[in-house]
Structure formats: C-alpha cells, structure tokens
C-alpha cells in the first residue's frame, strides 16, 4: 500500500483496533506517515456474514469521505 501511495494512487488501509499501532508504525517506516487508517472493531475472524457486513458498514462513511476528498 505504501508503494501504491508513493506512486500517487488513492490509498487507505482498513484495520481492526489491535492493528492500529502496527499500521501507524509501518506507515512511518515505509515513508508514508499520512496514510489514512480506517479503524473497525476487532475481530475479523470467525464472524457471521451479517457481522462482516456490519464491519464494512462501519468503515464506509470514512471510506467515502476519503474518496471524495481524493485522499492520497
């Protein structure tokens, strides 16, 4: 994702809460500290399809906002 961002593509990462610190650190390590991170509730494994849809719905407003802003 960092490489895509460096190439100027619209980029963002969706991660669950426990992965936020890792995501922030890695964005910094790979030279894209402003990479948007959309946080959704943990966990992702072992969920029903409805719960997965709920996770997607949780991420959607921020996702749309970033796309509209042309987030890079």
């Amino acid at each position, binding site marked *: 994702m960092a490489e895509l961002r460096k190439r100027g593509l619209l980029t963002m990462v969706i991660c669950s809460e*426990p*992965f936020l*610190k*890792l995501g922030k*650190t*890695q964005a910094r*390590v790979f030279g894209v500290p402003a990479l948007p991170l959309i946080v959704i509730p943990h966990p992702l494994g072992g969920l029903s399809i409805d719960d997965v849809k709920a996770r997607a719905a949780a991420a959607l407003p921020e996702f749309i906002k970033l796309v509209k802003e042309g987030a890079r």
Partner: protein
Amino acid sequence: MMDMVQLLKAPQAGFEVEDDFEAVNVYCRERGWTDGLPIVPPTQERVERMLAYCNRAWDEPIAALPPRFGAATPLRLAANAVMAGCLPEHFPIVMLALEAMSDERFNLYGIQATTHPCAPLIIVNGPIARELGINSGHSAFGPGAHANATIGRAVRLALVNIGGAIPGLGDMSTYGSPTKYSYCAAENEAASPWEPLHV
C-alpha cells in the same frame, strides 16, 4: 578491534545502570528488552568479548530487521547475544542466521508481523555444529543444550530489540508460540535419510 568507547558515544548506543544483576534485569525488563526470562547484563566487557569472534566492522549493519527495519550491527547483535547467554564462539552463527533470514526471499517481514504463531527455525549444518555442541539428537528441539538454547534466544532477542517484533505491536501472533523463545538445532547428517542441507 574497533574502538568500543567511541562507538558507545553514539546516541542510545548504551545505557548506565547500577552494577547489580537484579537492577540491570529490572531496567531491561521494564523497557521490554527481554523475553521475560532473566538476561545476562550486556556490559561493555562482555560485549567486547563477544565481538572478538566478529571479523566485520562493529557498526556496519549486517541486515535491516523488519518490521522496524532496525540496523542489525555486530555491536547491537553482540549485546543481544550476551543477554541471551551465548558464548563468544556462538556469535558467528547468530550473525549468519540473521543475515540469512534477511534475504528478501525468506520474507522475514511477514514472519515477524503475522497473526500466525510461526517463528524462524535455525538448522546448523556441518562441522561447526559439532564444534559448538549444537544438539541434533535426542531432544534436539527441547531443553538441555547450551548452544541450541542461547543461539536461538539471541536471534529472538535481536528480532524483538532490533527488528521491533514486540508482542502486540510488531509481532501480531494471536497465540504466540514457545518457539519464539528459542528455536535452533543442528542437522543430524549421520542419521538423516536425506541429502544434507548444504548439498
């Protein structure tokens, strides 16, 4: 031999703490520099003894260890090897193992950060394994052999302290694994039905 005093002038190259086994252990443990077990205090004298078995520049990185991509210099690796309880003659294997793991094809980045409970396994082949007493026989992956225990532990401490594979921050392994304490054995060439690993 390089000038250790000069190298230790670099920012955060060393730390000062009361000359007491327990005090050093509390200091290191509180900073997350241990695996939870007591460490051997990495004094300047011990680190220099470890580096006596290093024929590279002490401050020249051997590898960049992910996910932090920290610079694995012999100086830093020697400190971790001391902490792990290695003998100086074990040190070349520690350096070599980490250099090998840093080969891009091995994908150490994925191994370090994954939610899977995997850990890199070091298998030592050849006469050096016998010279160092690396166990390849009964309980090769169990406790008992000093070389197996400390070489594997030194590599793990380096992966944490230099690479940043800190549980919950850079190491996202859901359950973790006892193999993340130490994971080193020798190849048992004499008893193996397969071609030796160096072939």
